[in-house]
């Protein structure tokens, strides 16, 4: 190496390398843009529909006739639509119950697994697998069956002398069935927690125990702050995913959102309006309501995160 670059004559080499570097970077620019062509088309196919759906939200549109501008009508209709309000309520209730429980379960099991357990990989697989199949038609149908009136859940409760409700046909219990299904899939968040826990240097705990800190104190003062970015990541993705639940509700209720609209998730209602009633203007308005709500939640999350998320950089 040394022999190659030996006596450098600064001025000449600078004069030589300047234009060549520029030429090279221009060439690289072009190559980059060529390679980005698929991405550009894909991005346009996201951004343009994003704008168009905002426009459609202010129109009356049914796919066959041209869209007709109707101003704020769709949004006024939304506010006065009791079914839409029910759908919003069902979705929010589901999200605010299922996401925290899943996160606590994920963190709890991750902590148990992090303490050096033999057979870690076996346990990790067993807990992770459900999250990959939880939203499949087969599992939702299975859930319907095990929560049926004579299903294994009530059979289990009966052993303790509890007479279980008719989970799937009682409007006040149907959503609980889907919440348990969501919690069953805590494994994805658990794997992320587990990876986060591995990043925390062991010496912090050693130093803390030398100072006489209890395990609880160590959890509060070391684990939680250092894990907070991961917790934040899981929280944001969990909320966004949960608010968009569709398949579970559709399969569970046969597309109706029943019993008595108790599983009428927002996206299911949007589907009914857009693709069964073909009221695509109204469905676009619903989609934009959903988008704004998700944007607000995410923004609040990011704002509040400055108070509790700790970046150890």
């Amino acid at each position, binding site marked *: 190496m040394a022999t190659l670059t030996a006596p450098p004559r600064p001025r000449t080499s600078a004069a030589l390398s300047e234009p060549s570097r520029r030429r090279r970077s221009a060439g690289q620019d072009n190559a980059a843009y060529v390679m980005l062509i698929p991405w550009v088309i894909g991005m346009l196919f996201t951004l343009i*529909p994003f704008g168009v759906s905002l426009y459609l939200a202010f129109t009356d549109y049914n796919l066959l006739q041209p869209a007709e501008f109707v101003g704020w009508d769709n949004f006024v209709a939304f506010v006065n639509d009791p079914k839409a309000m029910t759908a919003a309520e069902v979705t929010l209730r589901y999200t605010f119950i299922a996401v925290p429980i899943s996160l606590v379960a994920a963190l709890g099991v991750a902590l148990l697994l992090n303490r050096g357990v033999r057979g870690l990989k076996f346990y990790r697989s067993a807990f992770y697998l459900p999250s990959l199949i939880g939203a499949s038609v087969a599992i939702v149908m299975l859930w319907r069956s095990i929560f049926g009136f004579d299903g294994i859940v009530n059979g289990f409760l009966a052993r303790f002398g509890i007479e279980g409700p008719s989970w799937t046909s009682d409007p006040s219990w149907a959503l609980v069935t889907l919440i348990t299904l969501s919690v069953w899939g805590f494994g994805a968040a658990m794997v992320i927690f587990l990876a986060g826990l591995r990043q925390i240097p062991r010496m912090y705990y050693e130093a803390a125990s030398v100072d006489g800190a209890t395990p609880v104190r160590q959890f509060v003062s070391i684990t939680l702050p250092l894990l907070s970015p991961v917790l934040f990541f899981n929280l944001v993705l969990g909320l966004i995913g949960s608010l968009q639940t569709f398949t579970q509700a559709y399969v569970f209720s046969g597309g109706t959102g029943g019993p008595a609209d108790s599983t009428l998730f927002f996206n299911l209602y949007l589907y009914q309006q857009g693709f069964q009633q073909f009221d695509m203007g109204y469905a676009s308005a619903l989609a934009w309501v959903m988008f704004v709500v998700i944007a607000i939640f995410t923004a609040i999350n990011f704002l509040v995160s400055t108070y509790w998320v700790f970046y150890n950089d």
Partner: protein
Amino acid sequence: MTELTAPRTTRSTWRAIAQKLGSDAVYTEELTGTPATRFLRHVVLLGLGLFMMYPLLWMLSASFKPSGDVFSDTGLIPAATDWSNYGTGWNALEHGFQLYLFNSLLLAVANIVGNVFSCSITAYVFARLRFRGRRLMFALTLATMLLPSHVVLIPQYVVFSKLGWINTYLPLIVPAFLATNAFFVFLLVQFMRALPMELQDAAKIDGCGAIRTYWSVIMPLTVPALATVSIFTFIASWNEFFGPLLYLTDQKLFTVPLALRQFIAAEGSSAWGPMFAMSVLSLLPVIGFFFIGQRYLINGIATTGMK
């Protein structure tokens, strides 16, 4: 001498990184706690694991029970075994189940090919090349991760229907070739950024252009991350319900989830045995892929979750 040693160094650097990212990271593990607490931990974990697996085991057992026994015979080992559930379920719909399995497989393979190529080439550009607008474009990609898919759904549906693509697989395949999965682009960018820059410089000295460098140098080294992308794509595509529900109405084109859904709608709640039999069949490929590739899955989601 230098010519010989230089590539070897880069190769060993690469290998160290690949080991760190691609393999199950090496944790020096000490077992904490007294034997009693360790035992207790296993009891809790085993109990919880069994509790979570129980519904799956129950379904497997139910798929071998006569339909009438499914809810009365509560044991995991069927009192009476009915092997005919699989045959009945297989032929219960207009077409044999093999057609739906084939359709699902076709879509999964097409999506894997699309995602592997389009996401990796995009990730290569973002991770390894310097050009105007790179930061903005990458930020835009990440932002789409937060975008609810339903907000672009209706205009996209309109476009597909004007193109005459309803009742074809195109709406379910073409987006995969356009690097629309921001999660995979992000995952691959993370992976490629960790590869040593000297690799690229060496390729450049050897006269490789950007495209050649991508294809001959970066792509082969990204195989572990591409495996992650492939397995995730397979599982997502295999389970996908909403897209096929929206775009496919012809039974000949149905995928496994649509067929299962159709089965339930057609047979009502009487044919429990055959329904569970087909449910088991529909889950087997996913579970199989999970056990073959779980190393890649776990490293994949851990990588994106971290930074």
